């Protein structure tokens, strides 16, 4: 899968995250109140709460952050973000950390792979393709889970809730050009 | 004893002022009775040469309307200044430039381009006026067209000012009454430099519309929706120039449901009409947020026109800034 290198590799992770976050990260404003960690529905499965991730980031403990499962366990529900008293865009920061983890090769391989497979589907067809995504991803990463998924898939197919073939948009080439240009732009930062 | 002499002349103007003087009804007879009219192109047939022949100071009263746009205007202004005891800048053009001065926003070249090559001009050979042109009969001479229009008092000293576009006829009549009385020795003329035929306050003074503390949240034009007939137009978001415009007209425009556009010029002692109006209007915009303020100001699409429609030549800057290629 094609992706752009991290902006200014060699930056501290904190700086890299700040650059990757599409609106000001305000990380320096975190008062470590724990509203985020308290709100997070998946906190129990996280190695570090979001708050702890921010403390680690600010402490320069980059490796701990990059290898933490936290951003990958984040379900992107924005619960933390709307409750943060400092209006820190936490979920966007989680995305930024994932971007960088992938680019620095420190990613949680499986989770990253799912995202990557998804991205590939989108680039091939312009749309997501559930059946293709599931089979490709499971075949590659969880072949054993696949049989367990079958009844679900059959149920879906029986109700025509899953397409057997992907739909491709008309201007797929235009889309690819856009994405290619975007990647170059990202790399040029 | 011969009658005192009277002259009325026009520079760059539309002729409305002459009409306003003629519009004083019977009083025009009194003018004729009191004065010997030595120059008044609209009303009598007189020659420049006759005026030139008069001794300096021979004319008692000259009403000069129109601004100084070209060499001829200036020549006549200087001539009449020499020949007159009392020189009055009459009407908005002479006192502050008026609409002709909006041409000060553009350089000569652009103006000529518009006039001689504009869509409403048929000029197949694309000719331009020449200051000097040789013809078989000899050399022809046209007055030089100046880069800007100036007010009369920017060229010669004036004794009185009568503002208005045009001045209200009843105000002209009132001023003439004072002059007649003074000539009869029954009254004294006001101190030199005074503004005559107008008040010392602004149009709101005469405007009967109800007003309150002002708060503007948006601007609009009268054609954008119904206008309350009783309430101050500015409070309805209509950019009324009444607060900054010298009174004397009787608030004709706001009375008729239209915003005052400022023809009577600045009030007493105001150095820059447009700046004053801007300051007033901006002060009552009801927002503290720069973006919102900008949004509200979008409702004034042509600020130079809105604030300097009559007063550009009389303002501190006197004109717009232009480059030689005509771009502002």
């Amino acid at each position, binding site marked *: 899968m094609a992706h752009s290198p991290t902006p200014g590799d060699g930056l501290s992770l904190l700086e890299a995250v700040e650059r990757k976050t599409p609106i000001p990260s305000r990380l320096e404003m975190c008062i470590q109140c724990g509203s985020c960690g308290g709100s997070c529905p998946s906190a129990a499965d996280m190695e570090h709460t979001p708050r702890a991730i921010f403390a680690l980031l600010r402490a320069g403990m980059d490796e701990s952050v990059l290898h933490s499962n936290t951003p990958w366990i984040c379900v992107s529900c924005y619960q933390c973000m709307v409750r943060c008293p400092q209006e820190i865009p936490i979920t966007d920061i989680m995305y930024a950390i994932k971007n960088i983890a992938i680019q620095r090769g420190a990613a949680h391989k499986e989770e990253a792979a799912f995202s990557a497979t998804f991205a590939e589907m989108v680039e091939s067809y312009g749309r997501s393709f559930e059946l293709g995504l599931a089979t490709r991803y499971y075949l590659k990463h969880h072949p054993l889970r696949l049989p367990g998924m079958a009844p679900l898939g059959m149920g879906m197919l029986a109700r025509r809730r899953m397409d057997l073939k992907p739909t491709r948009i008309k201007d797929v080439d235009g889309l690819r050009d856009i994405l290619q240009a975007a990647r170059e732009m990202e790399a040029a930062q | 004893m011969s009658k005192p002499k009277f002259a009325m002349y026009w520079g760059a103007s539309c002729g409305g002022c002459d009409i306003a003087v003629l519009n004083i009804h019977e009083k025009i007879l009194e003018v004729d009775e009191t004065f010997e009219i030595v120059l008044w192109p609209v009303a009598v047939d007189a020659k420049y040469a006759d005026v030139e022949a008069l001794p300096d100071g021979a004319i008692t009263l000259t009403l000069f309307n129109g601004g100084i746009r070209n060499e001829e205007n200036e020549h006549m202004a*200087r001539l009449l*200044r020499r020949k007159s005891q009392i020189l009055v800048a009459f009407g908005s053009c002479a006192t502050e430039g008026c609409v002709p001065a909006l041409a000060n926003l553009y350089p000569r070249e652009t103006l000529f381009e518009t006039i001689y090559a504009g869509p409403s001009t048929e000029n197949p050979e694309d000719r331009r006026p020449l200051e000097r042109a040789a013809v078989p009969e000899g050399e022809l001479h046209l007055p030089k067209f100046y*880069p800007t229009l100036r007010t009369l008092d920017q060229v*010669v*000293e004036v004794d009185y000012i009568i503002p208005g576009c045009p001045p209200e006829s009843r105000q002209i009549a009132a001023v003439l009454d004072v002059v007649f009385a003074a000539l009869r020795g029954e009254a004294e003329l006001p101190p030199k430099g005074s503004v005559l035929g107008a008040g010392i306050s602004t149009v709101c003074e005469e405007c009967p519309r109800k007003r309150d503390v002002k708060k503007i949240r948006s601007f609009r034009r009268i054609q954008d929706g119904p206008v309350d007939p009783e309430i101050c137009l500015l409070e309805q978001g209509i950019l009324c120039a009444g607060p900054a415009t010298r009174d004397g007209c009787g608030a004709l425009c706001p009375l008729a449901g239209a915003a005052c556009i400022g023809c009577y010029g600045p009030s007493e002692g105001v150095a820059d009409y447009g700046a*004053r109006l*801007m300051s007033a209007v901006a002060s009552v915009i009801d927002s*503290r947020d720069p973006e919102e303020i900008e949004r509200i100001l979008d409702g004034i699409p042509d600020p130079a026109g809105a*604030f300097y429609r009559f007063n550009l030549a009389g303002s501190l800057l*006197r004109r717009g800034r232009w480059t030689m290629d005509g771009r502002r």
Partner: protein
Amino acid sequence: MNKTFEPVLIGFTCNWCSYRAADLAGTSRTKYPPNIRLVRLMCSGRLDPTFVLKALAEGADGVLITGCHPGECHYLEQNYKALRRYHLLRRTLQSLGIEPERVKLVWASASEGLQLAEAIREFTEEIRTLGPLRWNAQAELRSEEVPLEAVP
């Protein structure tokens, strides 16, 4: 632009914040270019756009308006009025063909000597880049203008 061009700037300051900031820049020996000349007003709310036009008409190349930060006005809220006038003034200047960048509004509290000096430095450079306004000295016009003739 012109390397030797030294802009002449007028700065309006308010008695309570920005004038004091200028004083502080002085007492702390902070350096800034000598191009600016300051006028003290009681409040930025006193700023009549006439003053700005006057400065431009008299030969200034740029005008810096300064006042207390929003919410900190010594007169509570008058700097907001300055803000409104400033926005309108810039639009009018633009419509008269004058670069609106020649007038700039900067907030500076009494303790921001350093920031004010920096703002002055920046503004000086901005106007230097814009080049001279020379409102009253445009050669083409002056040649045509004839002095007033005195009355005999």
